[in-house]
Structures are given as structure tokens and as C-alpha cells.
């Protein structure tokens, strides 16, 4: 690392979400453009000062440079990120190092688009390894998508550890209370535990209010050096330790359904930051069971005790450990790969004191997680975490 890493660290200069909607006539690229425009406006940085891009959109060969050209960027550094739901956050890690290495000065990271319709997944005959796995070993059985994968995980957790539907339901109902204070959340109607328990079964034991709702929209963040960010007068958000893991227990004949790759990176993530010092957690939440697994594997509670932890902890914005203060993806919606940045945007707002009615009292340190893809009979393929702070990290 260069000296400038210390004297002029890489920060989050801007973060923004487009308006989310269930349906839209806009194309993927129109959403990405809008997300980037809003994030740059939030950063107070001009488009012509951007010289790096991380684009989180379905990967098409030889696409990165053309995408930059398409959006009118003369860039020094461009990449597409293809790490499932974790794409934009892992993309942030790449961008940070690129800026530190001097390859770029201002990088916009963006993900989002219109809704993905599933039959289009099978368009490619030669296919990626993911396509091969699905085509030959999963889809012929009439697999029900991520709802089924998490259904298998959740049933196993309930059987092995006595986790209850009510414990998991508290995740959905608490996040919904947060969403009621977030104007950009799509699901803002009151949700009681009774509503949750009685909601339609989708892939038992997964029910309707366990499932993230797909939507249209885009989310973007701008990374640059502190010195550049400060010129705009906006408060930068600092980046602490980060770590990612790809492929957990891949060599196991019978991988543990209930353990995620976070167990491999938690020591690194919390080497310089104590969990007790965190003012909030913003965790990628496509399902309540995903929140539970993250809390266990990140070391906030013992393995198997996640249900009990959820039951005993007040993780609302009024409680001791606020989680997903904006409502999480579960109540906000999942705008394609832009969903991975929703926890980042909420962290930025909280640290800047811009979270309005849901603002926590002077938070200084937070944690953001990201997860992507679910593997054949194991668990998450990509797990990533990042400490963010209001003040510069030592």
C-alpha cells in the first residue's frame, strides 16, 4: 500500500438509490445511468471527474469497455462484477484497491435494472458452470428457485437447532417497522407476527413474508480519495476492514447446509473493530434465515443459537443492536444486483445523520454485509463484509 492510503484514504463520497418500483418501462441501462447520475449528484462530483467504473449487470462477453463508452465515460479502469448479490460490494473492494494503486481516482459502482424473468436464464446453450449445474442437476427436478434452497436450509436449521417460525418472523416484522419510516421502501403496510405466520406457503417452511420481492431500480455509490470527496463539502464515509470469501466447503461430499463462508472471514473483519462497538448492522437480507445464519457465522452468537438471539435481542432502531434500519431488502425490494448496495446506502445515510425519522443517535461505526448466489446443496457461494465509519480509520 502506498503512503497516500494513510494520508488520503479512499472514502465513500456519494451513495444513492433510484426510485424503486414493481414495474417499469425503463431498460436495464437506463436504470444504471440514473443510479450513477444520482450518486454523483450526492457526492457533488462531476461526471467528467470519473475515471473508473464497476458495472453490475449481466455479463456479456467483451462488454465492459463498450458499456463505459455507451454511458459516455472516458475511463482508466473498468470492470464488470459477477458475484451474484454480492457483486457491487465486492466491486467496491476492487475499486478501493484500484484507487489506492493509482489506477483510478473516482470510481462509480452501480447495479440494478429491470426485473429478471427466470426463463431467460436458460438462453445460453454452452453456458457457464452455474448454467450447467442448474440444467443437469437442479432444474430437471422442478426446483423452485432460491425459495426452495432457503426452504431446505431453514427446515434443516429448525430440525437441528429448534429454531422457530416465530423467531424468524420477528426479522420480517421488525424490518417492516423500519420500512414504514423509509419513503423509498416498497412494502410499508404494517406486518404483524400473525400476518407473517399465516402468510401463504411458497416452499415450506418458506412463506410469503420470508421472500424478498423483486423490483426495478438501481443503486450506486462513488468511491474516491478523501481529499477529492471533501472538496464537495459532503461528509465522507470511511472504509475500515473488509473481507470476502468465495466457495465454502466446496470439497465436501456433504457440505454443512447451515454454515456460510463468513466463518472464514470473521476474524479478519473484526480484528480491529469489536462487535460491541458497532452502532448498527446492515445485512443483506433476501430471507430472514439468511440474517440468522449471518449473525451466527459472524460471531454475534453461538452456532445454532441464532433463533434464540433473534428472540432475545431488540434489533429495531430503538433497540440495543439495530439491524437493517431502512427496512432491508425484505421490505424495500430487490432491484437486481443493485440490491447489494442498499445496505451501503443506508449505512451512509445513518453515518451522515441523514436518515430522517429512522435516524439512530449519532452512530459512528457500522457493519455492512453482502451475499451472493446459493450453491448446490451447501450454502452461500459469496460472502463479504465491510466496516464503515464516520471517522477515519487508523
Amino acid at each position, binding site marked *: 500500500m502506498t503512503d497516500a492510503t494513510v494520508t488520503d484514504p479512499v472514502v465513500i463520497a456519494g451513495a444513492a438509490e433510484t426510485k424503486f418500483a414493481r414495474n417499469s418501462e425503463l431498460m436495464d441501462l437506463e436504470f444504471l445511468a440514473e443510479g450513477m447520475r444520482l450518486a454523483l449528484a450526492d457526492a457533488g462530483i462531476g461526471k467528467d471527474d470519473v475515471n473508473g467504473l464497476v458495472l453490475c449487470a449481466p455479463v456479456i462477453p467483451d462488454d465492459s469497455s463498450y458499456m463505459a463508452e455507451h454511458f459516455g465515460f472516458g475511463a482508466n479502469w473498468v470492470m464488470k462484477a459477477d458475484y451474484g448479490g454480492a457483486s457491487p460490494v465486492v466491486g467496491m473492494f476492487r475499486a478501493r484497491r484500484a484507487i489506492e494503486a493509482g489506477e483510478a481516482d473516482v470510481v462509480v459502482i452501480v447495479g440494478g435494472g429491470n426485473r429478471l424473468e427466470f426463463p431467460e436464464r436458460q438462453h445460453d446453450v454452452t453456458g457457464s458452470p452455474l448454467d450447467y449445474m442448474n440444467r*443437469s442437476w437442479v*432444474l430437471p427436478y*422442478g426446483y*423452485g428457485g432460491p425459495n426452495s434452497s432457503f426452504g*431446505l436450509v431453514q*427446515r434443516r436449521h429448525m430440525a437441528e437447532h429448534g429454531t422457530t417460525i416465530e423467531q424468524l418472523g420477528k426479522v420480517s416484522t421488525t424490518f417492516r417497522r423500519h420500512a414504514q419510516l423509509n419513503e423509498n421502501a416498497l412494502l410499508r403496510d404494517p406486518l404483524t407476527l400473525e400476518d407473517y405466520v399465516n402468510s401463504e406457503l411458497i416452499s*415450506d417452511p418458506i412463506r410469503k413474508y420470508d421472500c424478498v420481492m423483486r423490483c426495478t431500480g438501481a443503486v450506486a455509490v462513488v468511491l474516491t480519495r478523501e481529499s477529492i470527496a471533501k472538496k464537495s463539502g459532503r461528509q465522507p464515509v470511511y472504509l475500515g476492514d473488509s473481507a470476502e470469501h468465495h466457495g465454502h466447503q466446496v470439497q465436501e*461430499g456433504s457440505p454443512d447446509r447451515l454454515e456460510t463462508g463468513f466463518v472464514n472471514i470473521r476474524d479478519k473483519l473484526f480484528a480491529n473493530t469489536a462487535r460491541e462497538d458497532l452502532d448498527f448492522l446492515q445485512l443483506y437480507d433476501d430471507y430472514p434465515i439468511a440474517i440468522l445464519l449471518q449473525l451466527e457465522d459472524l460471531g454475534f452468537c453461538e452456532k445454532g443459537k441464532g433463533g434464540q438471539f433473534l428472540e432475545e435481542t431488540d434489533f429495531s432502531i430503538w433497540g440495543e443492536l439495530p439491524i437493517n434500519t431502512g427496512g432491508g431488502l425484505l421490505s424495500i425490494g430487490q432491484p437486481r444486483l443493485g440490491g447489494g448496495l442498499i445496505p451501503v446506502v443506508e449505512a451512509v445515510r445513518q453515518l451522515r445523520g441523514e436518515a430522517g425519522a429512522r435516524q439512530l443517535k449519532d452512530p459512528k461505526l457500522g457493519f455492512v454485509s453482502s451475499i451472493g448466489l446459493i450453491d*448446490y446443496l451447501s450454502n452461500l457461494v459469496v460472502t463479504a463484509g465491510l466496516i464503515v465509519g464516520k471517522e477515519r480509520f487508523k
Partner: protein
Amino acid sequence: MTKPMPTPVHWDRGFWNLAAQGILSAQRCQDCNHLQHYPRPACGKCLSPSRLWEHLSGLATVYSFTVVRRPFTPGFDDQSPFVLLDVLLDEGLRLLSRLKDESQAEGLGIGDRLRVSFQQIENGLHLPYFTKVNA
């Protein structure tokens, strides 16, 4: 709408050939002895291309299961709801499958004993399904 069907490739042809004879098999690495499923282009432990198709007992237990009520895979709308099985084979491998006879779904539980039972699909391949058996 046609159901998705497996397309055999160079590294998994042995599995489908044995399946046609009613035999469940998995890749056994000839260099490091690693046993793996689903089939991969090389050994996941040592990257060796050298493999044998080990015949498995076909006996297993239910590791987990889910009832699919909203299948998103085309061609399965008329079959829903149905049970999707996460199967633990006696040899220590897991695979995704289904009950051959959906009437066995009633009262199904984790730990129930299973036996493999193949079923031929439209493109001629034999797909492993499972039948609940008495312990």
C-alpha cells in the same frame, strides 16, 4: 412447456450411462481418492482428470426437504405442490432429487430412509429419484 433436461457433457457421460442400467454412481478420483457429486470437469481436491465411476448403494436418508408450491421451472406447473429432497447418501454425498411417488410425501421427515429409483425422461436419460423405504 417442455421441462428442462440434462445435457450430457464429456465429464458426466459415465453417470448417465450407468444410470441407464439402474446404477447410481459418483466420480472417484484415481489420484487422491476424493468422491464427488455433482460431476465436475476435474477432481475438486487435486484437479486430476483421472476418475472412475464408483457404483453407490443407492441407499440414503432425508437430510432436508421443501414443498414446492410455486415452481418457477417451466413445465412443472401441473405437478405442484411436490416435495424437493435434499438427500444424504450412505456414502456421505448429498444430491438434490424428488420422491418418485408423490403419495409418499405424507408424513415425510428428516432422517427417513430412501432408496434410489430411476425414471426415464423425454430425451432418453434416466434421472435418479427416490422411494421411501422402511428402516
